């Protein structure tokens, strides 16, 4: 093959490989090393280095070949020297050219010569010198031709752009990571604030301390059992924590009345879901529908709930979950006028209220979550811990839950047939 043709094919092959390497998203240092090898191998240059400029003028070696690690130690590039590189012609980049006014070459000519560096080219991106490429002589011993200069400059431009792009990507990734951390911190602060708020709500009601936190946890467990995403699960947990926030505006004496309250006081107490909505709606929550879950957590499927008497499909699923969690906690904790109910009693109530007060799907999901704990299939025994020692003990518990799940499943199938 004609040597000029062969050289052209060899150069084109290298340029194609260089383009691919620079466009890749692999490791930065590997990209620079490979690019440098491609440049050296195109013209069979015996040694070379790619160095990056930092803001303070120091130079950092990113890749080098045929040179010792210490060979470029102590090299710096001043702003004036950078400026000189911006306008330099290829021939002025030759180290042996003593006619040049380039301060960097004049300053380091001897040291560069000792390392057999013959050519120093700037990597210029968007009018700025981002680094330098230092090259040794050709293996053939020939002088650099004009064509060689053109090839080298084109490849150095490519490498400069590649380095610049990788650096930009790194910065973007770094900022994204910082933003992610900040966002996480904000979410944690938000969650901590909500928890503190929930504690404040519960302090107002001396008989239901820890109620809001438990409702949050039960809601989270039910939602997870229903296959909700982590984001949605977090959201419903918050809704559980805040579902009774409206009680803050209800008279403490009504909340703490140690007896069944009359209709007037009851109506006052029943204002708390709407009041909660009014408190929560102006806040920009990171999760959807939290104010609505608070507003509708006393609605019933049969339309006999409050504040709006919504029916089944009109009630948001989140509110249905919080409603069940709220009632379950009320049934399983002591109140001023009654002791908590047995688990058998609670299951009976859940069965009877399914389809009237509670959504059967939600009850079934909660029953499955409890059953998993009872059967030792759950990673943690969170419900058991909240209910206290002994409450879920006994072989009958598992049977009660299994039967409830089966009944609800049958009801669901019958409903679907109708």
């Amino acid at each position, binding site marked *: *093959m004609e*040597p000029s043709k*062969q*050289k052209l094919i*060899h150069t084109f*092959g*290298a340029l194609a*490989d260089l383009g691919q390497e620079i466009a890749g998203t692999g490791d930065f240092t590997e990209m620079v090393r*490979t690019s*440098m*090898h*491609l*440049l*050296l*191998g*195109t*013209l*069979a*240059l*015996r*040694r070379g280095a790619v160095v990056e400029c930092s803001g303070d003028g120091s130079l950092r070696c990113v890749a080098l*070949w*045929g040179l010792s690690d210490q060979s470029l130690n102590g090299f710096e590039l001043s702003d004036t020297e950078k400026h000189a590189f911006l306008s330099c012609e290829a021939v002025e980049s030759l180290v042996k050219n003593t006619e040049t006014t380039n301060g960097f070459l004049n300053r380091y000519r001897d040291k560069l010569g000792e390392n057999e560096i013959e050519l120093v080219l700037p990597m210029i991106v968007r009018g700025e010198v981002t680094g330098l490429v230092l090259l040794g002589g*050709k*293996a*053939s*011993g*020939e002088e650099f031709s004009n064509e060689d200069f053109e090839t080298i400059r084109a490849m150095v431009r490519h490498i400069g752009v590649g380095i610049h792009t990788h650096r930009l990507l790194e910065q973007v990734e770094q900022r994204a990571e910082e933003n992610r951390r900040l966002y996480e911190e904000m979410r944690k602060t938000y969650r901590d604030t909500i928890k503190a708020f929930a504690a404040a709500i519960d302090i107002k009601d001396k008989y239901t301390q820890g109620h809001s936190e438990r409702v949050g946890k039960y809601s989270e467990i039910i939602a997870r059992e229903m296959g909700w995403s982590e984001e949605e699960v977090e959201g419903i947990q918050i809704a559980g924590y805040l579902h009774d926030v409206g009680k803050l505006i209800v008279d403490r004496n009504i909340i703490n009345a140690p007896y069944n309250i009359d209709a007037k006081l009851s109506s006052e107490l029943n204002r708390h879901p709407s009041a909660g909505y009014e408190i929560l709606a102006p806040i920009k929550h990171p999760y959807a529908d939290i104010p609505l879950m608070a507003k509708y957590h006393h609605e019933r499927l049969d339309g006999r709930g409050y504040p709006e008497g919504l029916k089944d499909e009109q009630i948001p699923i989140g509110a249905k979950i919080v409603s069940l969690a709220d009632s379950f906690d009320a049934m399983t904790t002591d109140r001023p006028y009654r002791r908590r109910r047995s688990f058998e009693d609670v299951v009976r109530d859940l069965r009877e209220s399914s389809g009237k007060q509670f959504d059967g799907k939600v009850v079934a999901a909660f029953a499955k979550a409890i059953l998993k704990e009872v059967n030792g299939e759950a990673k943690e025994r969170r419900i058991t811990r909240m209910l206290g020692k002994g409450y879920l003990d006994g072989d009958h518990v598992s049977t009660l839950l299994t039967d409830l799940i089966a009944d609800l499943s049958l009801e669901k199938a019958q409903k679907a047939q109708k």
Partner: protein
Amino acid sequence: MDTPSGRLVRSHCVGTTAVVYASDYLNKLTGEKIERECRRQLDCGCRALVIDFSDTKLVNSIGISILLGIIDVAEKNGARIVFSEVNLPTVELFEMLGLTRHVVLAKDESEALMNLSRLETTTPVVH
């Protein structure tokens, strides 16, 4: 390191000469392995290197750069270097780029070893 494993570079020693076999495509991955093996052999006291290209179909720019690095290391160690059984297009490439100014080309491994032993008697390696 004489091993049939494709992941390692095949090589063996004949006296103080190491014969290192290049793979079918000399690129960065394979080139760097050969370079490491050559360095290892020189560090172990080898005074000459034969790089056998009998399996090599193609050498790209990165391969050229790495071979120049091996030549450099060999020269700095005072070791001679011979390329054997290089195919015609690659010979033309080596000639065009000036690699043949620094290495001897041999028809095959035995010719390479013979060349080296002849040089050994006429030009002893200076330690």
